[in-house]
Protein backbone atom coordinates (compact mmCIF):
# COMPACT_ATOMS: atom_id res chain seq x y z
CA UNK A 1 0.00 0.00 0.00
CA UNK A 2 1.06 3.59 -0.46
CA UNK A 3 1.04 6.66 1.74
CA UNK A 4 0.14 9.90 0.00
CA UNK A 5 1.17 13.12 1.74
CA UNK A 6 -0.37 16.14 0.08
CA UNK A 7 0.82 19.56 1.23
CA UNK A 8 -1.84 21.94 -0.02
CA UNK A 9 -3.15 25.48 0.42
CA UNK A 10 -5.43 26.10 3.40
CA UNK A 11 -7.88 27.74 1.02
CA UNK A 12 -8.02 24.59 -1.11
CA UNK A 13 -8.68 22.15 1.71
CA UNK A 14 -12.47 22.11 1.47
CA UNK A 15 -12.36 21.57 -2.31
CA UNK A 16 -9.85 18.74 -2.12
CA UNK A 17 -11.83 17.14 0.70
CA UNK A 18 -14.99 17.19 -1.40
CA UNK A 19 -13.32 15.86 -4.53
CA UNK A 20 -11.79 13.02 -2.51
CA UNK A 21 -15.16 12.11 -1.11
CA UNK A 22 -16.34 12.34 -4.70
CA UNK A 23 -14.17 9.34 -5.59
CA UNK A 24 -15.08 7.51 -2.41
CA UNK A 25 -11.96 8.38 -0.45
CA UNK A 26 -13.71 9.60 2.68
CA UNK A 27 -10.95 8.67 5.08
CA UNK A 28 -7.71 10.50 5.72
CA UNK A 29 -5.78 12.33 8.39
CA UNK A 30 -4.68 15.94 8.18
CA UNK A 31 -2.64 18.41 10.16
CA UNK A 32 -1.92 22.13 9.98
CA UNK A 33 1.70 22.70 8.96
CA UNK A 34 3.82 25.60 7.77
CA UNK A 35 5.47 25.69 4.40
CA UNK A 36 8.62 27.32 3.23
CA UNK A 37 9.34 27.59 -0.49
CA UNK A 38 9.12 29.79 -3.56
CA UNK A 39 5.96 31.47 -2.42
CA UNK A 40 6.66 34.18 0.12
CA UNK A 41 4.57 34.73 3.21
CA UNK A 42 2.45 37.74 4.13
CA UNK A 43 4.49 40.55 5.66
CA UNK A 44 3.65 41.43 9.24
CA UNK A 45 3.98 45.05 10.34
CA UNK A 46 4.09 45.72 14.04
CA UNK A 47 4.94 48.96 15.76
CA UNK A 48 6.80 50.36 12.78
CA UNK A 49 8.84 47.29 11.90
CA UNK A 50 8.05 45.06 8.93
CA UNK A 51 8.78 41.35 8.95
CA UNK A 52 8.12 38.44 6.64
CA UNK A 53 8.40 35.13 8.43
CA UNK A 54 8.23 33.46 5.03
CA UNK A 55 6.15 30.76 6.65
CA UNK A 56 2.84 29.95 5.02
CA UNK A 57 0.14 27.98 6.83
CA UNK A 58 -0.72 24.83 4.88
CA UNK A 59 -2.63 21.63 5.34
CA UNK A 60 -0.86 18.29 5.12
CA UNK A 61 -3.25 15.49 4.18
CA UNK A 62 -2.10 11.94 4.76
CA UNK A 63 -3.95 9.17 2.93
CA UNK A 64 -3.18 5.48 2.83
CA UNK A 65 -4.43 3.85 -0.35
CA UNK A 66 -4.13 0.50 -2.03
CA UNK A 67 -1.64 0.60 -4.87
CA UNK A 68 -4.28 0.37 -7.59
CA UNK A 69 -5.99 3.54 -6.44
CA UNK A 70 -2.79 5.57 -6.07
CA UNK A 71 -2.87 7.37 -9.42
CA UNK A 72 -6.58 8.10 -9.24
CA UNK A 73 -6.24 9.76 -5.84
CA UNK A 74 -3.10 11.66 -6.82
CA UNK A 75 -4.73 12.98 -9.97
CA UNK A 76 -7.80 14.08 -8.06
CA UNK A 77 -5.66 16.11 -5.67
CA UNK A 78 -3.63 17.54 -8.55
CA UNK A 79 -6.80 18.74 -10.23
CA UNK A 80 -8.63 20.27 -7.32
CA UNK A 81 -5.58 21.46 -5.39
CA UNK A 82 -4.33 23.56 -8.27
CA UNK A 83 -4.57 27.34 -8.69
CA UNK A 84 -1.67 27.51 -11.15
CA UNK A 85 0.01 30.16 -9.03
CA UNK A 86 3.22 29.60 -7.11
CA UNK A 87 2.59 27.82 -3.84
CA UNK A 88 0.09 25.16 -4.74
CA UNK A 89 2.14 22.63 -2.83
CA UNK A 90 3.46 19.10 -3.26
CA UNK A 91 2.42 15.51 -3.20
CA UNK A 92 4.75 12.94 -1.69
CA UNK A 93 4.27 9.21 -2.15
CA UNK A 94 6.00 6.64 0.04
CA UNK A 95 5.66 2.91 0.53
CA UNK A 96 3.69 1.47 3.44
CA UNK A 97 4.83 -1.86 4.82
CA UNK A 98 1.94 -2.41 7.13
CA UNK A 99 -1.43 -0.78 7.75
CA UNK A 100 -3.55 -1.90 10.68
CA UNK A 101 -7.00 -0.96 11.97
CA UNK A 102 -6.65 -0.64 15.71
CA UNK A 103 -10.30 -1.48 16.40
CA UNK A 104 -10.15 -4.92 14.75
CA UNK A 105 -6.52 -5.62 14.17
CA UNK A 106 -7.30 -6.22 10.48
CA UNK A 107 -4.34 -5.27 8.37
CA UNK A 108 -3.51 -3.82 4.97
CA UNK A 109 -6.36 -3.82 2.40
CA UNK A 110 -8.84 -4.98 5.05
CA UNK A 111 -7.95 -2.10 7.25
CA UNK A 112 -9.15 0.43 4.75
Amino acid at each position, binding site marked *: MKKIEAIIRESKFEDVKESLEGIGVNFFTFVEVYGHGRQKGDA*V*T*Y*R*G*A*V*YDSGDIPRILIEIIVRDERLDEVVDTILETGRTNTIGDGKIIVTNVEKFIRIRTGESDEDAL
Partner: protein
Amino acid sequence: MNLLYIQDMPADAMAIAQAAKESADLAQFTVNNLWILIAAALVFIMHLGFSALEAGFVRRKNVVNILFKNAMIISIGLLTYALIGFNLMYPGINEGGFFGFGGFGLNPSPEDMTAAYADYTYWSDFIFQAMFAATGATIVSGAVAERIKLNSFLVFATLFVAISYPITGMWKWGAGWLDAMGFYDFAGSTIVHSVGGWAALAGIILLGPRKGKYTEKGIRPITGSSMPLAAIGVFLLWFGWFGFNGGSVLNADPELVSLVFTTTSLAAAAGAVGAFFCNYFMTKTHDLSMVLNGILGGLVGITASADSVSITSAIIIGVIAGIIIPISVTAFDKAKLDDPVGATSVHLVCGIWGTLAVAIFGNFDEGIGQFSDQLIGILSIGAFTFAFSFLVFWVIKVTMGLRVNSEEEEKGLDIMEHQMRAYS
Protein backbone atom coordinates in the same frame (compact mmCIF):
# COMPACT_ATOMS: atom_id res chain seq x y z
CA MET B 1 -26.26 62.41 60.37
CA ASN B 2 -29.52 61.24 58.93
CA LEU B 3 -31.22 61.74 62.26
CA LEU B 4 -31.33 65.45 61.51
CA TYR B 5 -34.25 65.27 59.20
CA ILE B 6 -36.11 62.52 60.93
CA GLN B 7 -36.53 64.45 64.20
CA ASP B 8 -39.21 67.09 64.46
CA MET B 9 -38.22 70.48 63.09
CA PRO B 10 -37.35 73.11 65.68
CA ALA B 11 -40.01 75.79 65.80
CA ASP B 12 -37.97 78.91 65.42
CA ALA B 13 -36.81 80.24 62.05
CA MET B 14 -33.21 80.95 63.06
CA ALA B 15 -32.78 77.42 64.38
CA ILE B 16 -34.36 75.93 61.29
CA ALA B 17 -32.24 78.14 59.06
CA GLN B 18 -29.08 77.02 60.80
CA ALA B 19 -30.11 73.38 60.75
CA ALA B 20 -30.89 73.79 57.05
CA LYS B 21 -27.50 75.32 56.38
CA GLU B 22 -25.78 72.48 58.18
CA SER B 23 -27.79 69.87 56.31
CA ALA B 24 -27.05 71.59 53.03
CA ASP B 25 -23.34 71.77 53.76
CA LEU B 26 -23.33 68.15 54.85
CA ALA B 27 -25.08 67.10 51.64
CA GLN B 28 -22.50 69.03 49.63
CA PHE B 29 -19.68 67.43 51.60
CA THR B 30 -21.24 64.00 51.09
CA VAL B 31 -21.48 64.34 47.31
CA ASN B 32 -17.96 65.76 47.04
CA ASN B 33 -16.59 62.94 49.14
CA LEU B 34 -18.57 60.32 47.24
CA TRP B 35 -17.10 61.51 43.96
CA ILE B 36 -13.54 61.17 45.27
CA LEU B 37 -14.30 57.61 46.35
CA ILE B 38 -15.86 56.67 43.04
CA ALA B 39 -12.89 58.27 41.30
CA ALA B 40 -10.59 56.11 43.44
CA ALA B 41 -12.43 53.01 42.27
CA LEU B 42 -12.06 54.18 38.67
CA VAL B 43 -8.33 54.74 39.14
CA PHE B 44 -8.15 51.25 40.61
CA ILE B 45 -9.59 49.78 37.43
CA MET B 46 -6.72 51.40 35.53
CA HIS B 47 -4.53 48.73 37.09
CA LEU B 48 -6.59 46.12 35.31
CA GLY B 49 -6.23 48.25 32.22
CA PHE B 50 -2.46 48.22 32.50
CA SER B 51 -2.43 44.49 33.25
CA ALA B 52 -4.52 43.65 30.20
CA LEU B 53 -2.61 46.01 27.91
CA GLU B 54 0.76 44.65 28.97
CA ALA B 55 -0.41 41.04 28.87
CA GLY B 56 -1.65 41.62 25.34
CA PHE B 57 1.60 43.18 24.14
CA VAL B 58 3.99 40.55 25.50
CA ARG B 59 4.47 37.06 24.09
CA ARG B 60 2.39 34.11 25.26
CA LYS B 61 5.33 32.76 27.21
CA ASN B 62 5.51 35.84 29.45
CA VAL B 63 1.86 36.57 30.13
CA VAL B 64 1.59 34.97 33.57
CA ASN B 65 4.69 36.88 34.64
CA ILE B 66 3.29 40.28 33.67
CA LEU B 67 -0.04 39.54 35.34
CA PHE B 68 1.73 38.37 38.46
CA LYS B 69 3.81 41.54 38.58
CA ASN B 70 0.76 43.74 38.19
CA ALA B 71 -1.22 41.91 40.85
CA MET B 72 1.68 42.33 43.28
CA ILE B 73 2.40 45.96 42.38
CA ILE B 74 -1.05 47.28 43.22
CA SER B 75 -0.99 45.27 46.43
CA ILE B 76 2.48 46.27 47.54
CA GLY B 77 1.81 49.81 46.39
CA LEU B 78 -1.26 50.23 48.56
CA LEU B 79 0.46 48.80 51.62
CA THR B 80 3.68 50.79 51.34
CA TYR B 81 1.73 53.94 50.60
CA ALA B 82 -0.20 53.39 53.81
CA LEU B 83 2.99 52.70 55.72
CA ILE B 84 5.09 55.64 54.55
CA GLY B 85 4.20 56.89 51.07
CA PHE B 86 1.20 59.01 51.97
CA ASN B 87 3.03 60.85 54.74
CA LEU B 88 6.06 61.36 52.51
CA MET B 89 3.94 62.90 49.76
CA TYR B 90 1.68 64.91 52.04
CA PRO B 91 3.88 65.53 55.07
CA GLY B 92 1.85 68.55 56.13
CA ILE B 93 5.19 70.15 56.96
CA ASN B 94 8.04 71.78 55.07
CA GLU B 95 5.77 73.82 52.82
CA GLY B 96 7.76 74.89 49.78
CA GLY B 97 10.49 72.42 50.65
CA PHE B 98 12.10 69.38 49.06
CA PHE B 99 11.34 66.74 51.63
CA GLY B 100 9.09 66.06 54.55
CA PHE B 101 7.77 63.08 56.45
CA GLY B 102 4.60 63.04 58.47
CA GLY B 103 5.42 59.81 60.28
CA PHE B 104 4.59 56.16 59.73
CA GLY B 105 1.11 54.80 59.22
CA LEU B 106 -2.22 56.60 59.07
CA ASN B 107 -3.53 58.39 62.13
CA PRO B 108 -6.47 60.65 61.30
CA SER B 109 -8.25 62.69 63.94
CA PRO B 110 -12.07 62.85 64.14
CA GLU B 111 -12.03 66.27 62.44
CA ASP B 112 -10.25 64.64 59.50
CA MET B 113 -13.55 62.93 58.76
CA THR B 114 -15.37 66.23 58.31
CA ALA B 115 -15.40 69.16 55.91
CA ALA B 116 -12.84 70.68 58.25
CA TYR B 117 -10.24 68.40 56.57
CA ALA B 118 -11.23 69.07 52.96
CA ASP B 119 -14.14 68.43 50.59
CA TYR B 120 -13.54 64.77 51.41
CA THR B 121 -12.44 62.72 54.39
CA TYR B 122 -8.91 61.71 55.28
CA TRP B 123 -9.65 58.14 54.23
CA SER B 124 -10.95 59.26 50.85
CA ASP B 125 -7.83 61.35 50.42
CA PHE B 126 -5.62 58.38 51.23
CA ILE B 127 -7.32 55.78 49.07
CA PHE B 128 -7.55 58.12 46.07
CA GLN B 129 -3.86 59.02 46.35
CA ALA B 130 -2.86 55.41 47.04
CA MET B 131 -4.47 54.24 43.81
CA PHE B 132 -2.37 56.82 41.95
CA ALA B 133 0.83 55.73 43.65
CA ALA B 134 0.97 52.19 42.26
CA THR B 135 0.43 53.50 38.74
CA GLY B 136 4.02 54.62 38.34
CA ALA B 137 5.41 51.16 39.01
CA THR B 138 2.86 49.57 36.69
CA ILE B 139 4.13 51.74 33.86
CA VAL B 140 7.63 50.40 34.46
CA SER B 141 6.52 46.78 34.50
CA GLY B 142 5.42 46.93 30.88
CA ALA B 143 8.62 48.49 29.59
CA VAL B 144 10.96 46.01 31.27
CA ALA B 145 8.73 43.03 30.49
CA GLU B 146 9.85 39.67 29.09
CA ARG B 147 13.41 39.82 30.48
CA ILE B 148 13.53 41.18 34.04
CA LYS B 149 13.76 38.88 37.04
CA LEU B 150 10.55 38.75 39.02
CA ASN B 151 12.00 39.37 42.46
CA SER B 152 14.37 42.04 41.23
CA PHE B 153 11.45 43.88 39.73
CA LEU B 154 9.34 43.56 42.85
CA VAL B 155 12.15 44.99 44.97
CA PHE B 156 12.51 47.94 42.61
CA ALA B 157 8.77 48.54 42.42
CA THR B 158 8.49 48.58 46.20
CA LEU B 159 11.27 51.14 46.67
CA PHE B 160 9.99 53.20 43.78
CA VAL B 161 6.43 53.45 45.08
CA ALA B 162 7.47 53.83 48.68
CA ILE B 163 10.17 56.47 48.25
CA SER B 164 10.79 57.97 44.82
CA TYR B 165 7.23 58.69 43.72
CA PRO B 166 6.12 60.29 46.98
CA ILE B 167 9.16 62.55 47.21
CA THR B 168 8.76 64.10 43.76
CA GLY B 169 5.01 64.09 44.27
CA MET B 170 5.47 66.15 47.42
CA TRP B 171 7.37 68.82 45.48
CA LYS B 172 4.11 69.77 43.79
CA TRP B 173 1.05 68.14 45.34
CA GLY B 174 2.55 68.07 48.82
CA ALA B 175 2.89 71.87 48.69
CA GLY B 176 6.62 71.59 48.03
CA TRP B 177 9.02 73.90 46.23
CA LEU B 178 7.67 73.32 42.71
CA ASP B 179 4.20 74.25 43.90
CA ALA B 180 5.53 77.39 45.50
CA MET B 181 7.36 78.20 42.27
CA GLY B 182 4.20 78.01 40.18
CA PHE B 183 4.71 74.70 38.38
CA TYR B 184 1.35 73.37 37.21
CA ASP B 185 0.45 69.71 36.66
CA PHE B 186 -3.25 69.17 37.18
CA ALA B 187 -3.52 65.38 37.46
CA GLY B 188 0.03 64.24 36.88
CA SER B 189 1.37 64.22 33.32
CA THR B 190 4.74 64.65 34.96
CA ILE B 191 4.16 63.71 38.57
CA VAL B 192 2.66 60.32 37.71
CA HIS B 193 3.23 59.46 34.06
CA SER B 194 6.64 60.92 33.23
CA VAL B 195 7.86 59.68 36.57
CA GLY B 196 6.88 56.16 35.54
CA GLY B 197 8.42 56.76 32.13
CA TRP B 198 11.76 57.92 33.53
CA ALA B 199 12.01 54.83 35.71
CA ALA B 200 11.09 52.68 32.71
CA LEU B 201 13.85 54.31 30.68
CA ALA B 202 16.42 53.61 33.36
CA GLY B 203 15.35 50.00 33.48
CA ILE B 204 15.42 49.57 29.73
CA ILE B 205 18.93 50.98 29.49
CA LEU B 206 20.32 48.70 32.17
CA LEU B 207 18.47 45.62 30.92
CA GLY B 208 19.17 45.87 27.22
CA PRO B 209 16.76 44.72 24.52
CA ARG B 210 14.99 41.36 24.31
CA LYS B 211 16.89 38.65 22.46
CA GLY B 212 16.34 38.78 18.71
CA LYS B 213 14.64 42.18 18.65
CA TYR B 214 17.51 44.05 17.01
CA THR B 215 19.30 41.89 14.45
CA GLU B 216 21.85 42.79 11.80
CA LYS B 217 18.96 42.33 9.37
CA GLY B 218 17.20 45.13 11.20
CA ILE B 219 14.40 45.35 13.71
CA ARG B 220 12.48 42.09 14.08
CA PRO B 221 9.00 42.84 15.39
CA ILE B 222 8.06 40.75 18.40
CA THR B 223 4.31 40.62 18.06
CA GLY B 224 2.07 40.74 21.11
CA SER B 225 0.16 37.68 22.26
CA SER B 226 -3.34 39.13 22.19
CA MET B 227 -4.68 42.29 20.57
CA PRO B 228 -8.10 41.85 22.22
CA LEU B 229 -6.44 41.95 25.62
CA ALA B 230 -4.53 45.07 24.60
CA ALA B 231 -7.72 46.75 23.41
CA ILE B 232 -9.58 45.83 26.58
CA GLY B 233 -6.71 47.37 28.50
CA VAL B 234 -6.82 50.67 26.65
CA PHE B 235 -10.60 51.05 26.89
CA LEU B 236 -10.42 50.34 30.62
CA LEU B 237 -7.62 52.87 31.01
CA TRP B 238 -9.73 55.50 29.25
CA PHE B 239 -12.63 54.57 31.53
CA GLY B 240 -10.42 54.83 34.60
CA TRP B 241 -9.06 58.16 33.42
CA PHE B 242 -12.45 59.74 34.11
CA GLY B 243 -11.59 59.12 37.74
CA PHE B 244 -7.92 59.93 37.37
CA ASN B 245 -8.55 63.39 35.90
CA GLY B 246 -12.11 63.94 37.07
CA GLY B 247 -11.23 63.05 40.64
CA SER B 248 -8.24 65.36 40.58
CA VAL B 249 -10.69 68.28 40.74
CA LEU B 250 -10.84 67.11 44.36
CA ASN B 251 -14.54 67.81 44.65
CA ALA B 252 -17.66 67.37 42.53
CA ASP B 253 -17.76 70.95 41.22
CA PRO B 254 -20.22 70.63 38.32
CA GLU B 255 -18.45 72.97 35.94
CA LEU B 256 -14.91 71.74 36.51
CA VAL B 257 -15.59 68.01 36.60
CA SER B 258 -17.74 68.16 33.48
CA LEU B 259 -15.10 70.23 31.70
CA VAL B 260 -12.44 67.68 32.68
CA PHE B 261 -14.59 64.79 31.39
CA THR B 262 -14.94 66.59 28.08
CA THR B 263 -11.33 67.65 27.57
CA THR B 264 -10.09 64.22 28.63
CA SER B 265 -12.34 62.34 26.21
CA LEU B 266 -11.71 64.64 23.28
CA ALA B 267 -7.95 64.48 23.79
CA ALA B 268 -8.07 60.69 23.87
CA ALA B 269 -10.14 60.64 20.69
CA ALA B 270 -7.80 63.12 19.03
CA GLY B 271 -4.85 60.97 20.08
CA ALA B 272 -6.32 58.01 18.23
CA VAL B 273 -6.83 60.07 15.09
CA GLY B 274 -3.37 61.62 15.31
CA ALA B 275 -1.72 58.22 15.67
CA PHE B 276 -3.90 56.78 12.89
CA PHE B 277 -2.71 59.30 10.32
CA CYS B 278 0.89 59.64 11.51
CA ASN B 279 1.35 55.88 11.55
CA TYR B 280 -0.29 55.50 8.16
CA PHE B 281 1.92 58.22 6.77
CA MET B 282 5.03 56.51 8.17
CA THR B 283 4.26 52.86 7.39
CA LYS B 284 1.22 52.78 5.08
CA THR B 285 -0.42 50.41 7.54
CA HIS B 286 -3.26 50.49 10.05
CA ASP B 287 -1.47 49.30 13.17
CA LEU B 288 -3.94 48.74 16.00
CA SER B 289 -1.18 48.88 18.60
CA MET B 290 -0.28 52.38 17.45
CA VAL B 291 -3.85 53.66 17.60
CA LEU B 292 -4.22 52.17 21.07
CA ASN B 293 -1.00 53.87 22.15
CA GLY B 294 -2.29 57.05 20.51
CA ILE B 295 -5.36 57.04 22.73
CA LEU B 296 -3.14 56.66 25.78
CA GLY B 297 -0.82 59.39 24.50
CA GLY B 298 -3.76 61.76 24.23
CA LEU B 299 -4.88 60.87 27.75
CA VAL B 300 -1.43 61.36 29.22
CA GLY B 301 -1.04 64.60 27.28
CA ILE B 302 -4.22 66.22 28.56
CA THR B 303 -3.67 65.10 32.14
CA ALA B 304 -1.63 68.14 33.11
CA SER B 305 -4.15 70.68 31.83
CA ALA B 306 -7.54 68.92 31.67
CA ASP B 307 -9.10 71.53 33.96
CA SER B 308 -7.62 74.62 32.40
CA VAL B 309 -7.76 74.44 28.62
CA SER B 310 -10.46 74.98 26.02
CA ILE B 311 -12.02 72.16 24.05
CA THR B 312 -10.08 73.19 20.97
CA SER B 313 -6.83 73.20 22.89
CA ALA B 314 -7.63 69.77 24.31
CA ILE B 315 -8.10 68.41 20.81
CA ILE B 316 -4.84 69.96 19.60
CA ILE B 317 -2.97 68.58 22.62
CA GLY B 318 -4.41 65.15 21.89
CA VAL B 319 -3.69 65.18 18.17
CA ILE B 320 -0.08 66.15 18.76
CA ALA B 321 0.30 63.47 21.42
CA GLY B 322 -1.10 60.97 18.94
CA ILE B 323 1.32 62.11 16.26
CA ILE B 324 4.19 61.82 18.71
CA ILE B 325 3.51 58.12 19.37
CA PRO B 326 4.63 56.46 16.10
CA ILE B 327 7.55 58.86 15.79
CA SER B 328 8.68 58.22 19.35
CA VAL B 329 8.21 54.45 19.18
CA THR B 330 10.34 54.33 16.04
CA ALA B 331 12.94 56.62 17.56
CA PHE B 332 13.34 54.46 20.67
CA ASP B 333 13.73 51.41 18.43
CA LYS B 334 16.33 53.23 16.35
CA ALA B 335 18.18 53.85 19.61
CA LYS B 336 17.85 50.13 20.37
CA LEU B 337 15.89 50.94 23.51
CA ASP B 338 13.46 48.03 23.62
CA ASP B 339 10.07 48.83 25.16
CA PRO B 340 7.56 46.03 24.47
CA VAL B 341 4.51 48.13 25.31
CA GLY B 342 5.60 51.64 24.33
CA ALA B 343 5.42 52.90 27.89
CA THR B 344 8.27 55.35 27.39
CA SER B 345 6.61 56.91 24.35
CA VAL B 346 3.20 57.09 25.97
CA HIS B 347 4.03 58.09 29.52
CA LEU B 348 7.42 59.77 29.30
CA VAL B 349 7.33 61.60 25.98
CA CYS B 350 3.63 62.46 25.97
CA GLY B 351 3.87 63.27 29.67
CA ILE B 352 6.52 65.87 28.92
CA TRP B 353 4.50 67.20 26.00
CA GLY B 354 1.41 67.52 28.17
CA THR B 355 3.28 69.34 30.89
CA LEU B 356 4.67 71.85 28.42
CA ALA B 357 1.24 72.21 26.80
CA VAL B 358 0.02 73.72 30.06
CA ALA B 359 2.13 76.79 29.36
CA ILE B 360 1.12 76.92 25.70
CA PHE B 361 -2.64 76.38 26.00
CA GLY B 362 -3.41 76.83 29.68
CA ASN B 363 -5.11 80.05 30.75
CA PHE B 364 -2.08 81.30 32.67
CA ASP B 365 -1.16 84.92 32.13
CA GLU B 366 2.49 84.40 33.01
CA GLY B 367 3.15 83.00 29.52
CA ILE B 368 6.90 82.46 29.06
CA GLY B 369 7.37 82.51 32.82
CA GLN B 370 4.94 79.61 33.08
CA PHE B 371 6.85 77.81 30.38
CA SER B 372 10.11 77.95 32.32
CA ASP B 373 8.26 76.88 35.46
CA GLN B 374 6.99 73.83 33.60
CA LEU B 375 10.43 73.10 32.21
CA ILE B 376 11.99 73.30 35.65
CA GLY B 377 9.36 70.91 36.96
CA ILE B 378 9.91 68.42 34.15
CA LEU B 379 13.69 68.49 34.45
CA SER B 380 13.96 68.44 38.23
CA ILE B 381 11.48 65.61 38.66
CA GLY B 382 12.96 63.77 35.68
CA ALA B 383 16.48 64.08 36.98
CA PHE B 384 15.60 62.87 40.45
CA THR B 385 13.46 59.97 39.25
CA PHE B 386 15.90 58.81 36.60
CA ALA B 387 18.84 59.01 38.99
CA PHE B 388 16.95 57.19 41.74
CA SER B 389 15.72 54.46 39.41
CA PHE B 390 19.02 54.01 37.66
CA LEU B 391 20.81 53.69 40.98
CA VAL B 392 18.34 51.21 42.44
CA PHE B 393 18.27 49.12 39.25
CA TRP B 394 22.05 49.20 39.15
CA VAL B 395 22.46 48.07 42.74
CA ILE B 396 19.97 45.28 42.09
CA LYS B 397 21.90 44.32 38.96
CA VAL B 398 25.20 43.94 40.76
CA THR B 399 23.64 42.24 43.77
CA MET B 400 20.67 39.98 42.99
CA GLY B 401 20.90 40.37 39.23
CA LEU B 402 18.43 42.15 36.96
CA ARG B 403 17.97 40.00 33.88
CA VAL B 404 16.97 36.36 33.49
CA ASN B 405 19.45 34.15 31.72
CA SER B 406 19.28 33.38 28.02
CA GLU B 407 17.56 30.00 28.41
CA GLU B 408 14.91 31.46 30.72
CA GLU B 409 14.26 34.23 28.19
CA GLU B 410 13.99 31.64 25.39
CA LYS B 411 11.58 29.40 27.22
CA GLY B 412 9.73 32.31 28.75
CA LEU B 413 9.33 33.64 32.24
CA ASP B 414 6.02 31.88 32.76
CA ILE B 415 7.45 28.41 32.73
CA MET B 416 10.83 29.35 34.22
CA GLU B 417 9.79 31.78 36.98
CA HIS B 418 6.27 30.53 37.64
CA GLN B 419 6.20 26.93 36.36
CA MET B 420 2.92 27.87 34.73
CA ARG B 421 1.52 28.52 31.30
CA ALA B 422 -0.87 31.39 30.57
CA TYR B 423 -3.06 29.30 28.30
CA SER B 424 -3.71 25.54 28.41
